[in-house]
């Protein structure tokens, strides 16, 4: 079974819990005392990931780090439908990679602001982190607004979400813990509701479920 080195409050770990829940993959969480124990910086964990970062998976001996990389791996290997990561479409792969990079930028800003406010990462330049997140959210909101206007629900074209949505979701929905309001981003707020209604969606601490969707009937 896949082993996930996991910490409940980590948005990056949450990305993998989400995908594995959407795909119905069984996995075992190995709980890491990220805080206050700093276990991810301890020698035992650095032997698994020299960067001292979560998440990491161990799938039958294949050890992988980096949330986005693991999303690519898990979706390619376990999603029989090929919808979360359509490996047969160069256009889609290009677009997904572009948004995975944006997800990394959201992590570098919105997640940093959250660590500053909640866990006192005082070395972070909080104004720069918040302003940076707002710049990204303006762009994401514009993108999603025009997507909606042409009948598209998700970040990438098509009628099914992709790992780009998964990668962007956690630190967007948690942004307010870093003092970054989403009031100015109504299209992002609607996309968050749609994301929460994907079958198999699970919550993490700080994320509440959406209410029922309008009946298809």
């Amino acid at each position, binding site marked *: 079974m896949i082993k996930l080195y996991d910490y409940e409050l980590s948005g990056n770990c949450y990305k993998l819990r989400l995908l594995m829940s959407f795909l119905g993959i069984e996995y075992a969480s190995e709980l890491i005392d990220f805080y206050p124990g700093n276990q991810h910086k301890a020698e035992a964990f650095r032997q698994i990931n020299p960067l001292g970062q979560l998440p990491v998976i161990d799938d039958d001996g294949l050890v992988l780090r980096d949330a986005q990389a693991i999303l690519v791996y898990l979706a390619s290997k376990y999603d029989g439908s090929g919808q979360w990561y359509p490996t047969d479409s160069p256009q889609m792969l290009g677009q997904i990679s572009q948004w995975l990079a944006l997800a990394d930028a959201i992590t570098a800003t919105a997640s940093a602001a959250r660590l500053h406010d*909640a866990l006192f990462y005082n070395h972070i330049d909080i104004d720069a982190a918040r302003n940076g997140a707002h710049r990204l959210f303006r762009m994401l909101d514009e993108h999603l607004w025009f997507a909606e206007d042409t009948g598209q629900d998700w970040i990438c074209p098509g009628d099914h979400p992709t790992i780009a949505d998964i990668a962007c979701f956690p630190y967007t929905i948690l942004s307010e813990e870093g003092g970054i309001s989403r009031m100015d981003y109504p299209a992002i707020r609607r996309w968050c509701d749609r994301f929460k209604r994907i079958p198999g969606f699970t919550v993490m601490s700080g994320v509440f479920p959406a209410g029922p969707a309008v009946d298809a009937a």
Partner: protein
Amino acid sequence: MPEFTCKDPVALNLWHVIASVEEVADGSVQRTQLLGDQVAFTQRADGDFIVWRPTDSNSDSVPSDPAVLLPVQQKYGYIWTTFGTPEHDIFAIPEFDESDRRNIHAATFGVHVSAPRAIENFLDMGHFPYVHTDILGAEPHTEVKEYYVDVSEERDEIVATNCKFWQPMAAAGSTDGADVDYIYRVPHPYCSVLYKSCPGEESRLDAVAVFVQPVDEEHVRAHMMLTLIDEVSADTAIRLFQQTIFGQDKPILENQYPKRLPLDPRAETPIRADKSAIAYRRWLTGKGITYGVIPSAA
């Protein structure tokens, strides 16, 4: 010494937690904020902790004049200090000293809310099914049954007893829900201790304490300490459970408006389930506290 930012004598004369001993053990100088002012602290070579107000925002030098040091106590695994002259000693948690208990520092989290709002949430059971879904409560079991609230004159603290709330998987390993018993104490305007029936031993209670450090009127550091009778669970699992629970409360607290706790009875709408919160607001009003609250206009 410059004036304090906080002008509330009640808050100035309280003992406040500023850090877990566990997190400062490396001997370096660290900083935090209390009641709107910077404080620095470190552990000296002799093992004692010292706390002072740094005069220079960049310098981490330890003051040479002992007269500028603030009072310090080490209690329950935390460093406590004060800006004034506390009337009382730090309140008692007798369970902490019982030899067969495990005392665990679960976390210190920053939250954008006032200290009294954080305490009031800690006293509240009605939110369990909605905020701690499937852990501390679950719909449709939403009733808050009658409980008792007393303000102990002798100890100057609020005590809520006979509290019961339905919890899924009430005992370790069980799949059935049942009522769990709680007792709540508020022995300090910004601190609270809850006692909860403990799965292993019927006659004893596990305790969870929250010591809220008012960073300023609308920001806190919430320090969480557990004292448990549990020989099974690993520290990590216990900590992570508590962090999961607190992480669920965080977005609620950060979405409360106004952030300071309104003491005017007509500011919000209490129900019977809020008896302990009502007693808490009255108790704060009686103390004349103004920091972190919106005092009643009348």
